[in-house]
């Protein structure tokens, strides 16, 4: 497959619509509940402000309470509008500006987090697509490109984290006490247990660095293995959260770009439809003595089933 065909492989607009919902919903949860640091910088004295490259280029000022609240609630308002699906380019662009600036405020006071850089990519590419409805199964190259860009950014987070470990920690990073330090500083009850079981944290470092450096393999395997790898990364984040309450939340939303979201929606709808038909059948007195409840309601048009129950007229999405 030539690189351009891969990069622009068409994807159903429905998938973009669903991913947009996840992304903009996350923006709201993030600025209101999750990532509080930026908010408190409004109260911090400007003497603590250490501008990043981006701030010097754009002459961004030290945070004030007014600026922080504008960025925060501006993000929420724009994200709510974006969730309606109307004016996606405009609302998406506003969300991108306010959220990215809000992160800048969070990071310009001495500590930069590295779990949110790839989310910037999602916010920048999603407004490029224009209107996309959940019912719209037409495929689009623009949508395909956006999803690929998000996938690449998500995997780059893992791959380049691995390289950063080699750059700053050297090959000896795998044998270092970095995980021990993380657990000592911020471990949970579960995490602390691992301090007492020898080699677990040490072994975890070997596994993590290997997985990170091999992460681009996800682009070269078949669909089944790809989904297993995505599930594997989600599992890794669950474990890390259980141990040190750090989760790369925005990044978890990005990983959805690998999954056929519109197919999951179809399957869920089909399941619900079957459930309601079965409920009707079992409650209908006329069917009581037939021992109802075994009716296979059939597959709704537009759904794909694993067994391929005669749905040749439906195109399997890539």
């Amino acid at each position, binding site marked *: 497959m030539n690189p351009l065909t891969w990069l622009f492989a068409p994807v159903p607009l429905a998938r973009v619509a669903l991913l947009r919902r996840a992304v903009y919903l996350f923006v709201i949860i993030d600025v209101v509940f999750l990532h509080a640091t930026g908010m*408190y910088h409004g109260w911090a004295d400007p003497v603590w402000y250490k501008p990043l490259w981006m701030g010097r280029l754009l002459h961004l000022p030290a945070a004030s309470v007014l600026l922080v609240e504008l960025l925060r609630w501006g993000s929420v308002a724009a994200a709510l509008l974006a969730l309606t699906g109307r004016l996606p380019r405009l609302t998406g662009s506003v969300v991108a500006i306010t959220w990215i600036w809000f992160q800048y405020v969070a990071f310009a006071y001495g500590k930069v987090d590295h779990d949110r850089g790839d989310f910037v990519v999602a916010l920048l590419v999603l407004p490029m697509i224009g209107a996309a409805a959940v019912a719209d199964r037409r495929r689009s190259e623009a949508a395909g490109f956006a999803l690929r860009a998000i996938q690449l950014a998500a995997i*780059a987070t893992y791959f*380049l984290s691995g390289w*950063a470990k080699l*750059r*700053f920690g050297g090959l000896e990073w795998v044998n270092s006490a970095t995980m*021990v330090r993380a657990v000592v500083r911020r471990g949970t009850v579960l995490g602390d247990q691992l301090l007492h079981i020898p080699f677990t944290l040490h072994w975890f470092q070997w596994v993590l660095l290997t997985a990170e450096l091999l992460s681009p393999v996800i682009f070269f395997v078949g669909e089944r293995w790809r989904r297993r790898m995505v599930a594997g990364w989600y599992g890794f984040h669950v474990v890390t959260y259980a141990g040190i309450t750090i989760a790369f939340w925005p990044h978890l939303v990005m990983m959805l770009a690998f999954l056929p979201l519109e197919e999951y929606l179809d399957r869920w709808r089909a399941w619900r439809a079957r459930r309601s038909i079965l409920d009707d059948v079992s409650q209908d007195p006329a069917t009581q003595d037939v021992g109802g409840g075994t009716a296979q309601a059939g597959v709704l048009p*537009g759904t794909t089933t694993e067994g391929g129950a005669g749905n040749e007229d439906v195109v399997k999405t890539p």
Partner: protein
Amino acid sequence: MRFIPRAIPSTTERSTGPEPGPEVAVRRLGAASLAWRSVVLLIGVVLVVRGTLFRQDTDWPFAPMSQFAFRTGPNDAIHSTFLEARTTADQVIVIPITPKQVGIARAEIEGQLPNIVRKPSLLSDLADSYRRLHPGKPPLEQLWLRDRVTDLYKGRAVGEHIDPIVGWPANDR
């Protein structure tokens, strides 16, 4: 995965509704659109890789993903700063350095330690933030920045002690 061959001439959608046949409408991009998107992506990739190999945090979002990238030796000491303070009610309390408590995160203070040691009056800002964030509690009249040190031996924690760093207004222990 089913491909729609590029030989089919179309730069706009071929139909407006769901297809009964084996192919679904595909909206394609023109050559210019393909080109600028590819170029921007390539520039982004170059900047991000350059950031990882050569640059620092200040280049965010093109910074190295250095969270947990630094190596703590198996026989090193682990440092964790916190605040101790005497209130106007003559109580000595321990305050974790978090945005909710003093408006700034622990890692951010640790990132600025040399500045604080050089100029202890910077701690007065933390006292001000504390007062603004906790109007109902007695304000802080003396602060000490302290370091909880955990010693490691062969990767296991073997001991803990507390070191003073700096105090304000009185730079004592």
